[in-house]
Structure formats: structure tokens, C-alpha cells
């Protein structure tokens, strides 16, 4: 009896085990955010404390790095989302010469190894005489570059899966093209654009390999973590890690709830 029950659910049980395994390090991050370390060199749980949460900026350079990462992430997200959305509209709605070359150009940055992209950008900046000016702006340029393709792909998927009967109905009812676009098309595509923006921000905020090569002396949050990993990690790093996890879960759950409410309202 139990043998059969287990056989039928074996895959599900194994799948859940794999899922649990992916959460093990997260549990450690959350736990360590409440840790009062006995010494800076030994990375293990010693005693419970709320200090890390109450004073996250004990090391001001960490909070500076977080702020810089947020700034770069927001700017990169805005630019990449706008450029990428325009391109996605062109790809789905417009006819042009060189479609397959364009698709390849958009696909390649997602497949190229980061170390190659990072080093080639550095080679360009050095060749152009910018090796002394590496910093905020070169990081931003790089982040917009690698976020772009992900935006195009995400928005394109939303647009391609969209039925255009609503837009045709709007036109039939004498809406101008501009009215049709802003009142019908844009709201329908918006979830895709929002998803692309969230993806861009998290890609930008978390990037290390490309950033590290093109940052000069500027420090982003991942670079800060890289630096302290060699000489002892302040527990506040785990506070930031926990916050990142909690905020993204909240955003995903919020949009899921919103979807459910909407589909209920439509039903």
C-alpha cells in the first residue's frame, strides 16, 4: 500500500528534495544575518543577535557599495527596458531586412561567457583611451549591454503571444493609432515590460564578472563581497542577502496575487 503510494509520488518527492537542497544556502544566509561572530576570521554561527539588522551600516563602505549598485541597477534597467521594448516591438510588429542577423545579435550576448564579454569591453575601453576613467559610467554601459537581450526576449515573448483582436476592435471603433496603442496595446504588454525590468535589475545588481573587469576603483556590492571574502565577511552582508531574497519573493507573490484577483474579476 505505502509502496505503491511512494512509487506514484517518487518523482514528486525527489523533486521536492531537489527544491529543498536549493534552499539550504538561503537558510544559512538568513541564520547568519542573526549571528554575533566570536571572531572576524572564523565564519560560523556563534550567538544570536539582532545587531546586524539594527546597524546594517557598521561598515559604511558596504552601504556605499549597496547604494552604488542600486543606482547603477536602476539606471541600467530604465535604459535597457526602453531600448529593449522598442526593439521587441520592431521584431514582432514590423518587417525589415536582416531579421535573422538581428536575432543572432540579440541571442549572442546571452550565450557568450561573461569573462569574454567583460574582457572584450575592457579591451575596447583601453584601446579608446578610457583606461583611466573606468568606473560608474563604464559599469553602466556594460550593464545596459547585457540586460538588453534579456529585455528584448522577455517583451517579445509577451507580444508574440498576444492576440491582436482587441487592437483591431479598438480601430474598428475609430480609435486613433495613438489611442489604440496607449489604451489597449501598452496595458496588455505592460506585465512583460515589468517582468523584463525586474529581471534587468536583478541581473545588474548581482553581476560580478563583467563589472569587476570594467570598474576601475569603483566598488559595487558584489565587488565589496568579493573583497571581504578574502579577509573576513561582516555579518551585515547576510542582512543584505536576506533582504534581497525577501524583497524579490514579495514582488513575485504580489504580482501573482494581483493576477489571481484580476482573473477572478474577469470571470
Amino acid at each position, binding site marked *: 500500500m505505502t509502496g505503491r503510494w511512494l512509487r506514484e509520488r517518487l518523482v514528486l518527492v525527489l523533486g521536492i528534495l531537489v527544491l529543498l537542497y536549493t534552499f539550504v544556502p538561503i537558510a544559512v544566509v538568513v541564520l547568519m544575518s542573526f549571528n554575533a561572530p566570536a571572531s572576524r576570521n572564523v565564519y560560523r554561527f556563534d550567538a544570536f543577535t539582532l545587531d546586524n539588522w539594527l546597524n546594517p551600516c557598521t561598515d559604511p563602505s558596504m552601504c556605499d557599495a549597496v547604494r552604488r549598485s542600486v543606482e547603477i541597477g536602476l539606471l541600467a534597467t530604465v535604459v535597457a527596458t526602453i531600448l529593449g521594448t522598442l526593439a521587441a516591438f520592431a521584431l514582432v510588429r514590423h518587417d525589415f531586412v536582416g531579421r535573422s542577423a538581428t536575432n543572432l545579435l540579440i541571442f549572442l550576448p546571452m550565450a557568450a561567457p561573461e*569573462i569574454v564579454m567583460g574582457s572584450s569591453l*575592457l579591451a575596447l575601453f583601453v584601446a579608446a583611451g578610457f583606461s583611466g576613467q573606468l568606473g560608474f559610467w563604464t559599469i553602466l554601459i556594460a550593464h545596459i549591454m547585457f540586460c538588453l537581450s534579456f529585455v528584448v526576449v522577455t517583451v517579445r515573448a509577451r507580444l508574440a503571444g498576444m492576440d491582436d483582436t482587441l487592437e483591431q476592435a479598438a480601430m474598428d471603433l475609430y480609435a486613433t493609432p495613438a489611442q489604440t496603442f496607449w489604451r489597449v496595446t501598452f496595458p496588455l504588454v505592460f506585465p512583460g515590460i515589468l517582468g523584463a525590468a525586474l529581471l534587468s535589475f536583478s541581473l545588474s545588481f548581482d553581476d560580478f564578472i563583467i563589472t569587476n573587469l570594467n570598474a576601475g576603483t569603483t566598488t559595487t556590492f558584489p565587488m565589496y563581497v568579493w573583497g571581504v571574502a578574502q579577509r573576513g565577511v561582516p555579518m551585515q552582508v547576510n542582512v543584505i542577502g536576506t533582504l*534581497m531574497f525577501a524583497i524579490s519573493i514579495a514582488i513575485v507573490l504580489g504580482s501573482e496575487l494581483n493576477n489571481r484577483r484580476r482573473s477572478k474579476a474577469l470571470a
Partner: protein
Amino acid sequence: MSETVRKRGRLGYLLLFPALAWLGLFFVVPLYSLVATSLFDPAGSDFRGYTMSWAWGNYSDALHEYWQPLLRSIVYGGIATALCLVLGYVLAYAIAFKAGRWKNVMLVLVIAPFFTSFLIRTLSWKLILADDGVIVNSLQFLHVLGSDGRLLATPVAVIAGLTYNFLPFMVLPLYASLDKIDHRLIEASGDLYAHPAIGFFKVTWPLSLPGVVSGTLLTFIPAAGDFINVQLLGSPNQRMVGSVIQSLFTDANNYPAAASLSMILMVLIVAMVVVYVRRAGTEDLL
């Protein structure tokens, strides 16, 4: 659904131009600079400047000096990809076929852990695999490891880290192609008295191949180029090609050598991808 009519005219080009210009300027042109840098005279430096000397010798020097990290990257990346395929297939299969109305929740849970910073996640593996940690102690108790055996600073820790960090790149494409499979085909194989295992290998697995191919590529490429896992979980004995390129650029300031090694890595990966995709018979994916 009616096929959307694609509009002709200038607007399409205008919409496309900014994104393509950005990618052209900051993705394609840099690749050209990388090729050029890889052929610079290795005697130059950041301060004195470089001269173009068609120094093809940079490539043989780089291969000669760094073939070990290069090979290690391919091997570690390959093993991690294989492990990801096993773990990821189980998880994707469970979500696509067994999760029922929990499908969306499980999909969110697959991505959720990876919203925490890559470096922080890897640091927590350092803690989990630590010398006096639970895992090392139990393995010592079971005599899998010697009494002074350790996991950190070994290939095991590096591969474990790579496997963990790139798992979602495997699960999502696998799920996408498993979810598309028509369940009636699998039922039909059962009705025709195929053993479930045979049904799996003759029906489910071949139909999921597009997901397997894109999942393995999306996992292998970043895993082979990664150096974060080696740096945090391994030791210089496990140095991978990414660490070498990175330190040649930022510490040694030896741009020609770093650029030629980057080029070698890229050519190697492209060649492997082409052969692999041909053999898997899924060329239309690219």
C-alpha cells in the same frame, strides 16, 4: 489566433536602431578590440602603450602556459552540467507532470533562492562545507573522508558550487519543453504495453531534447567561464581559466595574454557548442 501582419516602412528600423547600435558598439566592436589586443606585441604595457605586431605567438604561449586551467574549466563545467541535468530533470519533470495546481508555486520556488546574490550564496556553501561543519564531520564518521580530510579547497567543493549556482539555467528550459509534451503520447505508450521506463526513453526523453540541449548549453557556458566558485570554495590547485584571464587583466596587466586566452576560451566553447548541437540534431534551436 490571427497572424499579426508585420508592417513595412521606416518605423521598424527606427525602433530597432537604438538597441542594435548599443549592442554593436558595446558587444560587437569590443570583440574586435579583443582580437586586436590578443595580437598586440606582448612587450607593451598599460603605461608605455601597445603596438600591433600580429603576434600570433601570444596564442601558442597562452595555450602552452595555461592549458591546465583551460582543461580544468571544461572538465569541471562538464561534470557540473551533467549533475545539473540529473537534478534538474527530476525537478522539472516533477513540476511539469506531478505538481498539479502547485505548478506555479514550485516554479517560483525554483528561481527564488537565486535572487540572493551569487557571491553570498557561494559564501554560504563555504560555511556548509567547512572543515568542522556537519557534512565534513559526517563524511569523516562514515570514513568516506579521512580524519583530516576536507571538502573545501578540493575539486568536489568547486563542482558542487558550480552545480548549485547554475541549476536554474537547467531547470527552466527543461520545464518549458517537458510542459509542452502531449500527455496522450505517454499514455499511448502505456496502452501499447510499453514498460514505463521504455515509455520514458522512447517518448518523453526524445520529446524533451530541445530543453536538454538549451539547458546544458545555458549551464555549461557560464560554468566553464566562472571563477567565483573556484576562488571562494577551491584553492589555486583548482584554478580555472576564468581566474587566469581575470588576474592577467586586473593584477598582471598583461592584456595581450589575457585577450588571447579569452579568444581561445570563446573559440573552444563555440566549437563544442556547434558539434554538440549537430550531434543532438537540434540545429533549428540556434
